[in-house]
């Protein structure tokens, strides 16, 4: 099917806007709890990002497909059922294929069900839009969540352990190098500071652009 250029542009906007402009974490300030908990190193942040993108894409597509037949009275419970089922499947896949990371993520995969980003996208976008834009919106918002998680995870692992994905990057004093690891980075409060600084930088850039 040929895509005309205005709808191509709007599709791009649906995908890209939540990544930069209307980012779920830095602008909408949603989904922070999990963002704090899973970012003490890069690998769990990456896996969690993948899980959220998968659930968001699935939930948006499913709700969009059903939106014209969905009875208003049971709308929310239907949405939650679909989201929860997707989360259970994702959790099982993680347990089976990445057991170590799954142990680190523990309850936070299950808590994707209650992640406000998902229900927000389903309610405000997928309920009113066709499947294709809904898929893009899901992936876009997932990516918006993901890049912040990955960035915070990378910074915390690099400064906290001197490694990235477990591979030594900075020579730590323990291993005879010069880099002194910052243990605060491995604790949850550091994620508050980093996300705070990030929101400030992004707002500052936004304000300069007018």
């Amino acid at each position, binding site marked *: 099917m040929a895509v005309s250029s205005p709808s191509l542009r709007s599709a791009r906007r649906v995908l890209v806007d939540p990544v930069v402009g209307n980012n779920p974490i830095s602008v909408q300030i949603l989904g922070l709890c999990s963002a704090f908990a899973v970012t003490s190193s890069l690998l769990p942040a990456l896996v969690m990002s993948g899980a959220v993108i998968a659930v968001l894409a699935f939930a948006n597509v499913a709700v969009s497909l059903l939106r014209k037949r969905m009875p208003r*009275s049971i709308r929310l419970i239907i949405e939650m059922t679909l989201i929860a089922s997707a989360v259970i499947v994702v959790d099982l896949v993680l347990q089976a294929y990445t057991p170590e990371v799954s142990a680190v993520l523990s309850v936070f995969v299950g808590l994707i069900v209650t992640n406000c980003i998902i229900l927000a996208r389903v309610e405000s976008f997928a309920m009113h839009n066709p499947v294709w834009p809904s898929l893009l919106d899901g992936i876009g918002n997932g990516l918006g969540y993901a890049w912040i998680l990955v960035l915070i995870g990378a910074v915390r692992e690099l400064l906290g352990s001197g490694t990235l994905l477990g591979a030594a990057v900075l020579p730590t004093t323990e291993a005879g190098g010069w880099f002194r690891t910052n243990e605060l980075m491995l604790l949850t409060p550091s994620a508050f500071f980093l996300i705070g600084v990030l929101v400030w930088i992004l707002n500052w850039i936004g304000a300069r652009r007018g």
Partner: protein
Amino acid sequence: MNEARESKTATIAFAAGVAFFCSLMVSTAVYFLRPVVLAYEAIDFNRAVVEVAGLLAADLDWDDRAVVNAFLELEARVVDLESGQLTDAADAVSADFRAAIDDPGRLVPIPASLDSAGLETRPRFAPVYLLRDVDRIERIVVPFYARGMWSTIHGVIALEPDSSTIGGISFYAHGETPGIGDRIERSDWRGSWRGKRLYDETGELRFRIGREAAAQSAEFGVDSITGATVTVDAVGNAIGYWFSEHGYAPFLEWLREGGR
């Protein structure tokens, strides 16, 4: 507003349809992925047993094959907790506690007066893993479980040849609060168990967990974990039960007297 869509029949039919689709999706995933998860759970158990038996250093990242090979070096036996003796009536794999506690046919009730850990029932048969050097028993590894804050906590504990000194403890399955109760897994706390004794010379169970117990006796006491009191107390009570006369004590006595 679409009237037909909002009718009672349509609503019920729609809910049933979604429910059916979701259950199909979840059960398909469980059907294909559950065996893989169970295999990892078995390896986690092997890893815990091998670690407390002292066959693999705890802080190194051993691959699954090394764990299973080391596990197979141990002599896997079954204790009949009624008689306190080794038995061939069951095999160690089928006696696994995680499977046994879901099977009423394999459980026996614990008399309320002896049930210091609130378990109510326990399996009749328990797997034990013995590390032998020629004819001498070097380590005795036994499983136990506790009713924690949210979950059943499964662990293994290794005893030295005197069947009283703790050689190591490890927890291989639990659902305690992440970041709080799950600190029982931390190697520094588990390490503090090493060298503590369960029984004094008269055979009385003296082992206790708690701040005061640790302060009173370096020989029998292990410190608690701040903030994780419920979980830690559950583990402490469970140790109290499992090494009592209704638990492993008769078996350990039997071993000390040369049973094999």
